[in-house]
């Protein structure tokens, strides 16, 4: 069972008629979005939060509800995605769910009061892998699709990648082989096919990458591998790797003995504000034009 993230205004199913490839109609078969609307009249940016959990579970509060509520409080409409998981579902089911979530939010931009050109992702750990994958592999939609959701692009406009597994290169130590996504004993080909650093193209959206050098679960060289890959294709990226902190530091706040990390939300806010994805602080807020 999955405990929903707290504080959502409502939830909605990505495919009310059933997800493609679904094996049933239970909660685990029905990917959904939890909605955290930002208040105010302006067209907000949107962020879909992708919790981690090794593609086997979902860390719904620390890597879902907490960042979503923080975003909404800072004028960004947030969504937490519940995507399908192993051992019931494997690649590419989570990717289909993520892509659908982007198209869903974008195609309902008016209803949500958001700007369809400002739809970002914030993924943690395995959810960060999913965000990185969606930043690398996307299309502009099918103009003549019957479902209006399928007519819009699934390219995120920006990504925040927190302690994400972004490379499956053998040069980077790893404790597991992504069994939650790929099943037991994945082949080298299967691993390469989801190694995000190999997949990025020049269309990769701007990324803010966060990691800690002391992370023993997802080595921080995942972050540098992705950073190098983005630089190689001429993309934009910002990288913050703190020295202390184990895997799973969430937003970096409220951690005993890790006060140094608590500045990270300020870095996120500064980066989003500079790009126009988060309203400027009250004192300096410009009048935002509705699109």
């Amino acid at each position, binding site marked *: 069972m999955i405990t929903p993230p707290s504080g959502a205004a409502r939830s909605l199913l990505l495919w009310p008629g059933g997800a493609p490839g679904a094996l049933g109609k239970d909660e685990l078969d029905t990917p959904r979005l939890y909605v955290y609307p930002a208040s105010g009249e302006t067209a907000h940016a949107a962020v879909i939060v992708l919790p981690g959990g090794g593609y086997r579970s979902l860390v719904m509060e620390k890597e879902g509800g907490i960042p979503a509520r923080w975003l909404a409080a800072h004028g960004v409409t947030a969504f937490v995605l519940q995507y399908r998981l192993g051992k019931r579902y494997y690649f590419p089911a989570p990717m289909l769910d993520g892509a659908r979530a982007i198209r869903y939010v974008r195609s309902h931009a008016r209803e949500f009061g958001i700007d369809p050109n400002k739809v970002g992702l914030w993924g943690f750990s395995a959810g960060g892998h999913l965000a990185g994958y969606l930043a690398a592999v996307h299309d502009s939609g099918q103009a003549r699709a019957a479902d209006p959701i399928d007519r819009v692009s699934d390219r995120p406009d920006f990504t925040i990648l927190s302690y994400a597994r972004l490379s499956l290169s053998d040069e980077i130590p790893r404790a597991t082989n992504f069994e939650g996504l790929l099943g037991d004993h994945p082949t080298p080909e299967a691993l390469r096919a989801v190694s995000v650093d190999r997949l990025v193209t020049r269309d990769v959206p*701007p990324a803010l990458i966060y990691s800690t*050098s*002391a992370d023993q679960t997802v*080595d*921080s*060289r995942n972050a*540098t591998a992705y*950073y*190098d890959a983005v*630089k190689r294709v001429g993309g*934009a*990226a*910002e*990288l*913050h*790797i*703190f*020295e*202390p902190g184990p895997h799973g530091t969430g937003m970096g706040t409220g951690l005993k003995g890790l*006060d*140094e990390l608590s*500045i990270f939300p*300020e*870095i996120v806010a*500064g*980066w989003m504000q*500079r790009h126009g994805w988060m309203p400027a602080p009250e004192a300096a807020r410009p009048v935002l034009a509705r699109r």
Partner: protein
Amino acid sequence: MHTWRMGVLAAGLAGGMVMAQVAPAGQADTAAGKTIPLWQNGAPAAQGTDEIDTPTLTIYLPAGENATRTGVLVAPGGGYQHLSMQKEGSDIAAWLNARGVAAFVLKYRLGPKYHHPVEIGDAQRAIRLVRAHAAEYGIDPSHLGMWGFSAGGHLTATAGTRFDAGDPASADPISRQSSRPDFLVLAYPVITLKEPLAHAGSRKYLLGDTPDPALVASLSAETQVTKDTPPTFLFATADDKTVPVQNSVMFYTALVEAGVPVEMHLFQHGAHGAGLAAANPQLRVWPELLAKWMRENGWMAPAAQ
């Protein structure tokens, strides 16, 4: 603020006149600022007795308590051809002093008059000198970091990857000290001297026009990291057009592979040579990140409540 020039060298070089100038500014900002030569009786391999032949240390001690008894040797940048003595020197000393940390700004010798190993020799001498006088400066000799900018970052990375414990038999008490910094701060550093990511100017002024390939390799700091390389903090910007940001990533990766504690912040926007970036709203958080890292490691006292 009154700024005086200690000396100006103008040398005609291919491509135009290049000025090497050294200006210890900022004395008005700090109580101290006494400048001493690294060697009382002339530096080894000196080719004269002018300012440019005389490496020095300018000492800035905090007015308040140095609670963690920490000192930082500051290596300004300038492509091994001049020195940014204010923005990457005295301004840094003032920032450290304001946070209760002692600072020592290094004026090291430069190309084209001086080449390797003169530069690293000056840096190592400065580290040993501060250690030998640690009690006088109110610091713990095992709390001596080095903070370098750009080419000064290369000098700092070099100091952090080639050091010795000192010569216990030496008659000179300074030479008996270790030259290993206890931590490194690298701001938009030059790390590699190899193509394609090298900063050509730094290589030219450090090694001359036709450098020995073996030296190019051994002075590429990313190839010299061991488990004994000191803990390191790296800062750079992705759109630095002078020193490719990958220099920082290479050093980070080498440190992680060696198991050395390291932190790295690579901002998206910002030109080379930002210094503390006080006027740049996109970058000015970086010194705060450094302060947090130094506090976390016991090299700076907690912020006043």
